[in-house]
């Protein structure tokens, strides 16, 4: 029963968070200076009639409270509205952007988790050696780098070797599926690497610290006394307990990487959600802004929710 209580509590908390975030999303963009109609209505020969028509079309002529309830009602039906700027459904726009962003972010994150955890564990195991010092220094170095700067440096370093931007080669007409896949992979290397390198340092530092703590525990000493091999002690016994803070970090960073992809996508002209949000902010495209920020919220909440559930599995103390 305690387990079910825990899951229910976490679920309610996640839902309330999403509701609050959705409300803030509605308020905050309308509170910002500028309006959705101002820019679009500024066309040669524009008339007040056009402006009024746009205001009516966008539903901005209604009282704010009414707009809010309409928004919530539509949200409950899974309808995020129609983009003011492109006049296409926000779900279509978001879907298109996410399909581009997720593989790139996922690749970078997996690299960071895998490489960062590995170097962190090795550094902890070899604490005090040059391997430890080198690993920590390198991790700190990348952790402290501004994402956009690192991206620009990689662009310069790999200029002429790897594509300088975009997701595909626009000059590759009618590619075969394999050609297309290879093309996308080539374009994905630099943005994913940028994201991965910035994140990896954090994973190194956290996993090293967690592993150092765990390796000092009595049960590790017991394992050694039992004559278990070092490799088994580190990877099977110590790492499992050290996974708790790493799991927390993974949950936190997943939220970050979706939002953090804005900088990477700007540097590498990657047509994902980061660029979509920049365009939406510029155009005061409220439905797109609400939609993209809802995605950010969902990413963070969902990642934390999954982390909470994983904690339940990883840490028996929670059950008690």
């Amino acid at each position, binding site marked *: 029963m305690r387990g079910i209580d825990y899951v229910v509590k976490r679920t309610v908390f996640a839902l309330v968070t999403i509701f609050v975030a959705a409300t803030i999303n509605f308020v905050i963009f309308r509170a910002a200076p*500028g309006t959705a109609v101002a820019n679009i209505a500024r066309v040669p020969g524009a008339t007040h009639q056009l402006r009024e028509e746009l205001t009516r079309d966008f539903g901005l002529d209604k009282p704010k409270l009414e707009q809010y309830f309409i928004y919530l009602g539509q949200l409950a039906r899974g309808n995020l509205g129609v983009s003011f700027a492109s006049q296409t459904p926000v779900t279509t726009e978001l879907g298109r952007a996410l399909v581009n962003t997720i593989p790139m972010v996922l690749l970078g994150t997996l690299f960071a988790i895998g490489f960062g955890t590995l170097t962190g564990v090795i550094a902890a195991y070899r604490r005090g050696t040059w391997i430890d010092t080198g690993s920590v220094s390198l991790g700190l170095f990348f952790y402290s780098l501004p994402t956009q700067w690192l991206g620009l440096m990689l662009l310069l370093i790999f200029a002429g070797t790897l594509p300088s*931007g975009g997701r595909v080669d626009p000059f590759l007409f009618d590619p075969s599926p394999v050609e297309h896949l290879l093309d996308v992979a080539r374009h994905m290397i630099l943005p994913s690497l940028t994201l991965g390198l910035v994140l990896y340092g954090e994973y190194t530092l956290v996993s090293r610290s967690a592993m150092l703590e765990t390796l000092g525990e009595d049960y590790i000493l017991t394992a050694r006394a039992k004559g278990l091999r070092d490799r088994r002690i580190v990877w099977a016994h110590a790492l499992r307990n050290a996974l708790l803070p790493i799991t927390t970090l993974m949950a936190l960073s997943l939220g970050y990487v979706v939002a953090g992809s804005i900088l990477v996508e700007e540097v*590498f002209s990657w047509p994902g959600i980061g660029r979509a949000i920049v365009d939406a902010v510029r155009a005061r495209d409220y439905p797109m802004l609400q939609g993209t920020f809802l995605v950010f919220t969902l990413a963070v909440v969902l990642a934390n929710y999954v982390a909470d559930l994983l904690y339940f599995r990883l840490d028996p103390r929670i059950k008690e």
Partner: protein
Amino acid sequence: MRRWIRLGAVAVSVALVAAACTKETDGTNGTEGGMVEGGIYRLGSPSTIDSLNPFVAFEQDAYNMFMQIYPFLVYYDENLEFTGDFADGWELAPDNTSITFATRSGGAWSDGDPLTADDVAYTLNLIVRFPGPTGLMAGYAKHITGAEATDENTVVVSYEQPINEGWALSQLLQIPILPEHVWSQHEGDDGKDLKRFTNADPTVSGGAFVLDNYEKRDIAQFSANPGFYGPEPHIDGYGLKFYTNTDAMISALQNGEIDAVETLPATAYDAVKANPDLVVLEGEGLNEDDFIINSNKPLHEELLDPAVRDAFAHAINYQEMVDTVLDGHGSPATTFVPPGSGEWHNANLEPIAYDIDEANRILDDAGYEMGPDGVRIANGHPMEYEVLTPNDVVGADREFQIIQGGFEQIGVKLSQKSLDPDALFVAIAGPTWVDYDGFDLAIWDWYMLQDPDFALSVLTCEQFGFWNDTGYCNEEYDALYEEQGVTVDQAARQEIVYRMQEIVYEDKPYIMLQYRDMLEAHSAEWEGFVFTPLGSYNNLTKLTLLNVHQVG
């Protein structure tokens, strides 16, 4: 990027500046090598195509694309003259209230349907019938009462009043001819569905190229249209790659990933110029920067005093601005109708001299005494003002610093508030967009048009809440604006346009800062570029993409 948004919004109409007007061409337009037919022309763009629907699209590249994939009645030739695109010729009625166009035969839409004068009449009438839903295009159909296809190859466009032919053609140059058989299926009730039609790729096209593939914010691919009514292009197709990072775009050009860039940042000029495999084109553009003085109800009333405005104008170091912000690729500005507008630019107006002593003298004479802390006193308060600046105009911060430095020497203290374009306009025009009572000073830029109508309109009272970003409202000026719009004789119209520039030069709602040169670059392996104040790839003409080719 904002500059391009603003540019896209006006879907700029400019006359071509032929290669002769460019400062440097490096033989690009020559024919040193042999012409190689075929191939894909690869172009990098700092803009993007935001929509394939002409009634929705806003960004410059969307308008550039429409010029390539749709027929237009006219476009500009190399000599700044209108020439027929889908129109084979035209004739203005004796009473100047209608134009009869003869259209070309043999054209076909990319889905095989014939392209005729009926499509022209349909498109224009569609806009006239539904000015709201077609709002982005409706402005260009101003004064049109309707269009009638009298036969398959003739269409008559009627106006509610006598019109100036050049003005009328410059407006029609902005309206793409749409396939009736496609768009008539998407009108909905009162045209409400027009904006919701995605016009998705492969788009039914009737211009020189067909849009085959479009990935938003990423790429667009075009192939030559076999049904095109005009000359066959020398390339098989072209591709556009959209960059958000101009450094990456220039890097791609340097490394041969792309063949050309739509625009070249002044900061990259030297590096690209030094590359023997690349060619840089430079010429007068239509982009200009201005210093705005609230001319309606500024927070500080003394800003309405002509003496203060004169003093301000003398306290700005225009040449330093050109040298530092533009790295020398531009010139100090005089009037808001830029030199790229050709004959409409009033070259009789002299640049205002940077003269701190003169500025101080003017303020002394006007009674603005210097306070103990080096800041003058006006109406009992220190002359301290906030300057609103756009956060997306390259160099705006540096421009502010230069102005601030000059003003400090005349006892005027400035502070800066940087805003994004949307917030900046609302800060200027006020929450209801017509107040113009919540700011003093601002810096902004313009992309003007070759025909001066648009430039002149932005200072009219009618544009309060739209393009007017100064709060300037002058009855005499407005009357002249109306007069120039219906003056049929070109020389008489020019005289009025010059007079209007003189009025603004004297009243100073704008102190014009600098004109930015148009810069672009391409691989030396390509020739045939037709350079304009908007670059070679633009929404003014199909000529560049009809002529561009590789050299053997």
